[in-house]
């Protein structure tokens, strides 16, 4: 079981933007910067741990109320600016989410204040930006868990992840998932060998057809200059690919891997379409 360290977000944010401070007025847990990538000036967003967060349940790299609303506000800021001042050839600026989030914040205060809406505003902003023509690219550098990932990153046109044992993309951490489904962790691991969507291994996740690419970096905690430029090029390629394709998420059903792994999804889509106008 990989332990969450929460250092990768900052490492990769700095590697790709050269910056590591929040924008004025933002909480220390949300890093946002504009930086050149290829020929584009892109907006990068990242959630990092803040041990001094005002909200006690959002101190270890969780996406909480402040993080979600800050992401939403900073994404909408780019959309608004590009609408008012169209860039060269009317190209919308890319929006890059760097993801290493432990989960959403699990707290009473969060529920009282409606964290579901906070999360929804951020998912909304990412999706609306994508539909408006902004290439939205997600780089999964570490963990991407459950509501944290839905809030920050899962609305991207293209998902990139490191091929690395510490990368964890899932609906729930292993121990909690085992308890709730009344299994032992061993049983869960055995099942995950045949039931691909249960697996905690990013190589199995890649088989589901949701990822654009797996990237090989020997140590994502401390990347070399060559590795940074490899990742940078992969992001540039993903931006170009996103610009060529449709703005919705159909690529996640249509990819080569999805044709095998998501057969049932494709079947139900086809059946509904057949019967829609009957």
């Amino acid at each position, binding site marked *: 079981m990989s332990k969450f360290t929460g250092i990768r977000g900052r490492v990769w944010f700095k590697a790709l933007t050269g910056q590591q401070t929040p924008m004025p007025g933002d909480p220390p847990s949300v890093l946002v910067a504009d930086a050149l990538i290829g020929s584009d000036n892109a907006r990068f967003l990242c959630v990092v741990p803040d041990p001094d967060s005002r909200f006690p349940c959002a101190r270890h790299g969780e996406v909480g109320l402040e993080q979600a*609303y800050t992401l939403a506000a900073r994404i909408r800021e780019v959309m608004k600016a590009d609408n008012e001042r169209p860039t060269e050839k009317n190209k919308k600026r890319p929006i890059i989410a760097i993801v290493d989030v432990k989960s959403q914040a699990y707290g009473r205060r969060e529920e*009282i204040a409606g964290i579901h809406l906070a999360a929804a505003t951020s998912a909304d902003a990412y999706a609306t930006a994508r539909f408006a023509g902004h290439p939205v690219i997600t780089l999964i550098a570490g963990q991407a868990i459950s509501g944290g990932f*839905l809030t920050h990153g899962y609305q991207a046109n293209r998902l990139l992840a490191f091929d690395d044992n510490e990368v964890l993309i899932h609906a729930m951490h292993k121990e909690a998932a085992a308890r709730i489904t009344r299994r032992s962790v061993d049983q869960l691991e055995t099942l995950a060998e045949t039931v691909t969507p249960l697996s905690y291994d990013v190589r199995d996740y890649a088989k589901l057809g949701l990822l654009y690419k797996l990237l090989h970096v020997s140590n994502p905690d401390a990347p070399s200059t060559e590795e940074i430029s490899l990742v940078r090029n992969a992001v540039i390629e993903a931006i170009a690919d996103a610009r060529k394709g449709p703005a919705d*998420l159909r690529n996640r059903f249509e990819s080569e891997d999805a044709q095998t792994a998501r057969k049932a999804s494709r*079947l139900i889509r086809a059946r509904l*379409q057949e019967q829609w106008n009957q």
Partner: protein
Amino acid sequence: MSVFSREYLQRRSFIELDARQRAQYLFDAGTGRELAGPFDRIESPWLPLQGVTPQSDDGCIVMRGAIGGRQAVVISFNGAFQGGGIGEVSGAKLTAALDLACRDSEQGKQTSAVLLLETGGVRLQEANLGLAAVAEIISSIIALRRYVPVISVIAGPVGCFGGMSLAAGVSSYIIMTPEGRLGLNGPEVIEEESGVEEFDASDRSLIWSIYGGQQRYDQGLADVLINDDADQIATTVRDLIAKGVPAIHRSEQVDLYRSRIAALDPSTQWDPGLVHSWSSWSAAFRQPPDEPIGRDQGAATKKEEDE
């Protein structure tokens, strides 16, 4: 004053209807038609591998028809099957229905969507495909709501939790009953992750005072609060479809809600009643229907009777 009016006691309960009946109840008589129904037998491929019996509709019912003379699709979750959890099939069914409604609406054949949400969120037995499906559902709601309203109804008793609370959050209108609950993390999950001192999941009154329909309506996190009355719910859905797309959606109001959070003091634990004393929350954002409907009307009827 009597607690229950005759209308309330003689009402037809919506909660007591099963998922298929709920969907059917919303349509103009004779127009509701189920798509990809149980006889198509498209089941979860993942549950049998885990010794869990699948269901031939995967706990998700899709119906097309007319509501108030307008085209609509209703997607209804069966909270009795796997807690209404989103699996690969049920999730793709909802997304496909939204996408077809979007395709028709784009071509000028306006088709609204109504989501009857009884769900704990991602079905853990299908983990990553459930989570992926929720991301796709959110995206498809946002695509569709540009043309027609997407209405979420949270009637109860399961409520709407987990990732699907984001789906409710991005919809055009949210209708709740006092028996409905809405939140990202349910009480058990918070107790499990953050400890019993953070949330005592056995404290029923705490749960309802946080997640319950009355609280969510008072906070401006739901647009209509309505009794568990199938006819009133059907009327409200029809009226909101007729009303069309709101000028701005709740989940686009980032600055309003962000400033509310900024004004709060989280240094000590909160009591849910605090919400009523937060001055920044007094102007609750709701999508107000043109005519008073739902609970307000019910209250007016009760008053007349008492007189």
